[in-house]
């Protein structure tokens, strides 16, 4: 507990540090003399700031090169780095720190490669898929995160945003048809299942959610700032499960609906019960490959932590009862269950609607 309080205290101070900083890119003009202390080599570097409001100013900074080389930024003449500029009250430069390497152009390049591959594999459908990804990201970042910060129930806002995202994606795929209606009903069933079951299991296993990486920072912000109103971490985790399962649920539901649609088109006289059983059959086929897709995502996000536990020889019985690990297991299982559960309602509704 002492440690916990200490950490909160540290992060209180930390917030003040962060808000004061302005980030810019800077070019290395000259690497001057360096001094070696106990476990550090300090280089005196002269930088020219090349972006932001302090553009074209020349500053002298210290670059710390630790024995632990992973924590260093290695610079050469003319290389570009990101710097944090601390300002005083008048907006003048008070202090400059080297923060790290420049990565934005590589990030842009990966996204461009993705777009090129998407268009060459999917043709004009690729552009549509890109639009739906873009809209989803916009919704998540610009709508969902502010909603959660403002203190709306995280689970409800995640479900609402997930539904809006689903509506956009489905209309881009199916247009305004009864297929869209059926798909949306199936997706709603899957999402609701994911959210509610996660909440139930979090309560059952008495998980508070305050020990996740990141929760500490949120708690600090809620205590220090009036604009942060997150209190219910269990609901936040349930919301995360809803978002994580959404993509896979849409995927399965669309496969089932379009499969059943093509069955009823190629065979217009098919009986309702036959259509439903062929729908269930399609769902079974789709499931086979899908089951692993989300499980492996969750394994990969927690892999490094698993390595840490193993390095420390923490007994398995301790790991499995750890909040962090239990949350990963619950999220992984339930988000995979969500798309399994969304199959039957979709199939039956599609059967009823296309035969009535």
């Amino acid at each position, binding site marked *: 507990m002492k440690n916990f309080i200490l950490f909160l205290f540290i992060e209180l101070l930390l917030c003040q540090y962060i808000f004061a900083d302005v980030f810019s890119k800077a070019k290395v003009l000259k690497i001057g003399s360096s001094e070696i202390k106990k476990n550090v080599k300090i280089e005196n570097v002269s930088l020219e700031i090349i972006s932001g409001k302090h553009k074209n100013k020349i500053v002298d900074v210290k670059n710390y090169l630790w024995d632990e080389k992973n924590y260093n930024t290695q610079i050469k003449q003319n290389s570009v780095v990101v710097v944090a500029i601390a300002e005083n009250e008048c907006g003048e430069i008070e202090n400059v720190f080297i923060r790290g390497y420049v990565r934005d152009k590589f990030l842009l390049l990966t996204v461009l490669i993705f777009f090129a591959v998407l268009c060459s594999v999917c043709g004009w459908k690729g552009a549509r898929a890109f639009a739906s990804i873009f809209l989803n990201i916009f919704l998540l970042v610009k709508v969902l995160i502010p909603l959660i910060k403002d203190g709306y129930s995280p689970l409800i806002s995640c479900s609402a945003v997930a539904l809006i995202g689903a509506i956009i994606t489905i209309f881009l795929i199916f247009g305004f048809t009864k297929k869209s209606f059926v798909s949306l009903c199936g997706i709603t069933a899957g999402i609701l299942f994911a959210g509610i079951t996660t909440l139930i299991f979090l309560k059952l296993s008495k998980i508070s959610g305050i020990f996740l990486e990141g929760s500490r920072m949120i708690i600090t*912000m809620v205590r220090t700032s009036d604009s942060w109103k997150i209190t219910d971490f269990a609901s936040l985790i349930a919301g995360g499960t809803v978002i994580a399962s959404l993509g896979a649920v849409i995927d399965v539901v669309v496969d089932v609906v379009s499969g059943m649609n093509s069955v009823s088109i190629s065979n217009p006289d098919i009986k309702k019960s036959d259509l439903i059983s062929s729908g269930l059959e399609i769902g079974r086929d789709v499931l086979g490959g899908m089951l692993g897709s989300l499980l492996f995502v969750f394994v990969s996000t927690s892999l490094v932590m698993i390595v840490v536990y193993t390095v420390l020889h923490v007994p398995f019985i301790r790991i499995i*009862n750890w909040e962090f690990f239990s949350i990963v297991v619950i999220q992984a299982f339930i988000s995979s269950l969500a798309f*399994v559960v969304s199959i039957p309602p979709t199939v039956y509704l599609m059967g009823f609607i296309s035969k009535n």
Partner: protein
Amino acid sequence: MVSLLVLSVNFIFADSWPEPPEHDFYAHPLLEISKSKDNYAVGKVIKVIKTDKQSDILSVKITFGASRGQIAEAANYREGFLIDVRPGSRILISYKDNINKATVVDYDRTLSLALLAFLFLLFVLIIGGLNKLGGLFTLFAGIVIIIFVYVPLIIHGYSPLVISLFIVFFITSTIIFFIGKFSRKSVSAIVGTLLSIIFVLILGMIFYPLANINGFSLEPVQFLNYFSKNYSSQPFNNFQQLLFSVLIIGACGVIIDVAVCVASSMEQIVLKRSGISRKELIHYGMNVGRDISSVVSNTLVLAYFGAELVLIISLTVSIRSLTNLFNNEWFFIVVFQTVAGSIGFLLAVPFTAISSGYLMAKK
């Protein structure tokens, strides 16, 4: 002292550190555990024996652990994380030598996790049919192999990249063989999956060194570095390779999904029209894949966003300008995992279509 700590923590999400990173600033529960060799047991609370200022002394019946069935005494301290204990609740206790001087450390969550696993199995078997049992078994075997074979091997100094490639190859092949039996369809799906995974890996091997990615902005990687140096005989060094394996393990699930879908619908066409030419078949496969992958394209984005929701929200505090965000290492890793994984399953379409074309059509 505190100002020292502040500076260290301030730079958690940066590449450069103005204070020695070796500094022991981790106030994490892991640290206490790593310093003492504790034994653990799971028990059920019978009653509260006595209460004093610092703790409640409980009488606990051990249900799992070395001395099963025994009744032990455990102290539930009031400082620290409060554990709400009532008679009948299941708790995790730790002790050094004497089980009667045990401490309550956490709730016991195994029962509810087991219930969840059972529900998962039940729903998948009811909705997916009994023949999914083999697929589920291989899936869990794959995860168990990652945790109990891959992780110990890389800790003992084997290259994470090579081991993870072998293990991902093994897992994908067994999963696909169990879904589609041993057939041409399965072989072509496996070829498509493996080629895509290799492509994702190559993409990572080009971009991670270019963008100077070593993972040290991520708290787990810092833990791993710190703990393996100070609490283990063998320090862990291959951080970039570890990130490569995280990349391909995260992507392989979705890639398998797309490859299997493409291969099985191509097999359906071959069954219906046995004389179909190779070119026509590949063209058909590409068409099917186009439909599938344009729908799947959202899956990875949403999955990673949902899985890291709490972290993302907390990072909106420290990352407030676009220059900071786009050059941030953590952001690069998350976006790259999503985008490279998506490129992987998109490429699984042509790879699988071509390999199925050569395996299934006569000419």
